[in-house]
């Protein structure tokens, strides 16, 4: 989707908020939020692409006005409701007035971390032929998928060169909506800064993106 999260190349956000020696979490609730996400993800009800897609569907004004961990809070509430793990009514009811049924036993931390390692592996062990090889000229397709995608707006329609083949990976556009892995080759693709940003950009600088076969077409 052409959403607010796709911000590569936008102007107007101001200086970078550099903070020397910052803490891992700026408040205890941020750590709880982080750990909640990790623990809930271990149930395997969704995948990383579905999680990102839920985040991308936050109201754009809310996305922009919320800090990173606030966005995670809203995302987590939404994805729990989407997967019938909690209801809107339960979220809106104060804890002291709530009557909930215990659904099972929670996972231990060792199990959570082990499942996280396994679930996050996006590499697929399938013998699928690559469409391109290092050195091939390509063009990023001019596509505007309505759902989740990992081809940023700023690169669509631009010409580049395959730098390396990473191997076969899960395709996020379909995985995000549980419509299959659609495994295919993922490449590191090199673009000149001028190809993307025009003659004002440095003549020597480059931008590299990781791109799947379905995002690319042969050039020339």
């Amino acid at each position, binding site marked *: 989707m052409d959403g607010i999260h796709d911000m590569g190349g936008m102007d107007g956000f101001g200086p970078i908020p550099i903070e020397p020696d*910052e803490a891992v979490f700026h408040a205890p609730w941020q*750590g709880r939020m982080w*750990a909640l996400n990790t623990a*809930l993800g271990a149930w395997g009800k969704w995948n990383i692409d579905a999680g990102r897609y839920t985040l991308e569907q936050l109201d754009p004004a809310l996305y922009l*006005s919320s800090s990173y961990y606030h966005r995670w809070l809203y995302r987590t509430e939404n994805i729990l409701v989407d997967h019938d793990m909690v209801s809107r009514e*339960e*979220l809106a009811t104060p804890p002291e007035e709530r009557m*909930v049924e215990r659904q099972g036993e*929670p996972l231990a931390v060792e199990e959570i971390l082990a499942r996280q390692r396994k679930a996050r592996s996006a590499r697929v062990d399938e013998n699928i032929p690559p469409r391109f090889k290092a050195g091939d000229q390509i063009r990023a397709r001019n596509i505007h998928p309505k759902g989740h995608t990992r081809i940023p707006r700023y690169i669509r329609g631009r010409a580049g060169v395959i730098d390396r083949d990473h191997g076969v990976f899960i395709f996020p556009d379909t995985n995000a909506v549980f419509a299959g892995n659609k495994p295919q080759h993922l490449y590191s693709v090199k673009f000149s800064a001028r190809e993307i940003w025009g003659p004002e950009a440095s003549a020597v600088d480059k*931008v590299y993106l990781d791109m799947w076969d379905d995002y690319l077409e042969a050039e020339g």
Partner: protein
Amino acid sequence: MTDHTDHTDHSHLSDTELRVRALESLLADKGLIDPAALDAIVDVYENKVGPRNGARVVARAWVDPDFKQWLLRDGTAAIDSLGYTSTQGADIVVLENTATVHNLTVCTLCSCYPWAVLGLPPAWYKSFPYRSRAVKDPRGVLREFGQDVADDVEVRVWDSTAEVRYLVLPERPQGTAEMTEDALTELVTRNSMIGTDRLAGA
């Protein structure tokens, strides 16, 4: 239902705390999470996984040419050999800075970051200014970090759009030939492994 706050998290903090606490207790009542497991996960990311892991990888590459070649050829395996197996299960590609090439990493679409070697990302890495500008004006971004890169040095920006994570191998500072691997580890900054810092004397 909405709970708008600014990027510094100072406003409505108590509302947010209450909302997170209510969510945690609901999920605990349902048996979906164990609060003690959350304590342990926070401890892992606050105290066990962090940029010291990446610094050890870099220092090893500086003192051991064979390890460096392996690291650049197959970063995932070389890093696994030091025991920093990715908690994210993601492949890691290592990018070498030289006198003529400077690498900078970003995730414009979200905040992908090599947790296994650097821990959780700093707030600025996840900020809208960095995500929006790193690909378009990397030299301006580097200047904000106090780094002027010469016009003839090639700046390569790596936008982490997939489940491959990038780690920058900074140049070894000059005048460090006599230093031990442990001492070299202390010279490696987190930002030098993201690409927004260059080490003094390098």
